[in-house]
């Protein structure tokens, strides 16, 4: 198998006195070309995992291998970040005084491209994310979704094999959020870039191919998402109404809807998902 990401017993502990185990023995493998979501409530360790995969932070123990390199052995982490991974942040983190094109050029400045080559590459990337006509706009002149798309173009500047997105839809309305996810899906399919999205939003997670759920620094679930409707049913089961129906109760407020007669069937369905 061709793994692009492999972690072994990855552990990160913060603080000296009251220790916080942000990650606790995580074993995760990601195949080249996957599109997956790491999900979990805040504090579950999902951002910590992303930072370790992107070499922004070092683990307390355990190992990270990305694109065939063991990160603990990589001497030039800046070059690794520049060539192998691309980051998309929750807040787009665009530089406010630079235009879209200039922002996309920023990571290219770490390399040795000529001014003209940088410009051409930035324009191609903006075309890819559908913002060619916004190349000379400043971030303040763009909508939230457009800014995030510029940030995606910037993350792709050095043709990374792995794109790491930390809550990329966190600051967007649901329409813009869906647009951004569709953009990431397209990149995954057309460019073959491996995309890992960190989110706490089940709807966002469901638009990927695989969900890794974290809780208290441990992986509690890791499965492919073959059937989004099955996910919908699971979400329903974990809702207040779903729980009541599973226990064989129809809440007072909706008794006239005639659910009582369907209850055995619903119960058996919910028990199976």
């Amino acid at each position, binding site marked *: 198998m061709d793994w692009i990401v492999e972690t072994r017993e990855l552990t990160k502990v913060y603080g000296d006195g009251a220790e916080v185990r942000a990650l606790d023995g995580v074993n995760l493998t990601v195949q080249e070309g996957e599109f997956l979501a790491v999900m979990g409530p805040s504090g579950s360790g999902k951002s910590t995992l992303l*930072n370790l995969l*992107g070499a*922004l*932070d070092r683990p307390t123990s355990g190992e990270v291998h990305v694109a065939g390199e063991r990160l603990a052995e990589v001497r030039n982490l*800046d*070059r690794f*970040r*520049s*060539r192998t991974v691309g*980051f998309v*942040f929750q807040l787009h*983190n665009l*530089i*406010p*005084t*630079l235009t879209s094109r*200039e922002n996309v050029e*920023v*990571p290219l*400045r*770490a390399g040795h491209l000529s001014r003209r080559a940088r410009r051409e590459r930035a324009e191609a990337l903006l075309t890819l994310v559908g913002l060619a006509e916004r190349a000379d706009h400043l971030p303040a002149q763009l909508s939230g979704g457009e800014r995030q798309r510029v940030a995606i173009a*910037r*993350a792709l*500047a*050095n043709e990374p094999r792995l794109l790491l997105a930390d809550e990329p839809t966190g600051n967007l309305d649901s329409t813009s959020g869906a647009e951004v996810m569709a953009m990431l899906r397209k990149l995954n399919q057309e460019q073959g870039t491996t995309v890992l999205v960190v989110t706490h939003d089940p709807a966002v997670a469901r638009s990927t191919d695989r969900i890794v759920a974290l809780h208290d620094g441990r992986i509690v679930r890791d499965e492919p998402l073959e059937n989004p409707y099955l996910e919908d049913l699971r979400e329903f089961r974990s809702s207040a109404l779903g729980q009541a129906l599973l226990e064989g109760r129809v809440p007072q407020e909706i008794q006239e809807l005639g659910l009582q007669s369907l209850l055995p069937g619903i119960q058996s369905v919910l028990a199976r998902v």
Partner: protein
Amino acid sequence: MVLKNLWRRKGRTLLTLAGIAIGVAVVVALLALADGMTAQITGMATGGGADVTLMQEGIADMSFSALGEEAGEAIAAMPEVEWVSGLLFNIVPVEQRPFFLVMGMDPQGAGIRHFRIVEGTPLQADDEVVLGRMAADFFDQGPDDELVLQGQRYRIAGVYETGVAYEDAGAVLPLAEAQRLFRKRDQVSFYQVKVRPEAIGEVDALIDKIQERFPDVAAYRSSEFAQNAPDIKNLQTMAGAVSLIGLLAGALGTMNTMLMSVLERTREIGTLRALGWRKRQVLGLILQESLALSLAGGLMGCLLGVGLVALINLSPALKGAFVSRLSPSAFATGLIVALVLGALGGLYPAWRAMRLQPIEALRYE
């Protein structure tokens, strides 16, 4: 990117620029003043064709210089010397002029020959004075008018021109009368010495000989006299001290500005690092910003310095007293001061920015 970053906080950048510019302007103006004074004194020392100029050894200011006339007579008797001319020099207030240069010279001596009379007659009697062209214009006086010096009335015999502003803005009295008026009997301030043409290769030997024989006389080649004059040295020391203070103040101001700027952009710097920028590149970005800031401040300071010099030259009361000369070296010094200040002020903020941990910086609100 560098310029756009600086322009983000226009007010702060402009204030820092103004601070640097004022410091550099003062440096440029002081150097221009020192250069102007050097040129003037060199003009005075060489104008009459003298090869060697003497003053008193170890004085703090040229107007204190006093040499006995017996030294002049002894030097005049030396075989390699063609002529010796004494000059008594004093600065007195006259009417609206706080600084008025009065020179006492032998009306028949060699030193006065290049004072070309353009109106009236040369000096003849002890109650006469000749006035420089600029002074005559300033006082609106000419031949047969009166000039009052230290309460004494003198008849203006004529008006002269030498082409050296210090001289043309002053007046010349007969040496004996100047010695009486300024109570410096048998004394002169400087001697000018002309070497015989056949001995022109022995000027240095003559200087050594004079200094050996008269220990309290300082002898210089006339062309090098100005650089050795204590007044010039004082002015240059002052310019140096002001430059140093300006440099420190400017560096602190630049450092403050750049530190604020780095702090505000912590998250951005974290983003740059996450996008693969090397530490060295972050360091370079901040240093370039501070150097661009100081270079712009330096250029503005040079312009402001020109303005300051023009303002001093405009003042009629100071005309002739402060002659400044803007030389390329004054501008170069101003710009070097600015760049050093930018490098000093930018280094620490750039180092701070370089040391930021990307993950901490990204979390910064």
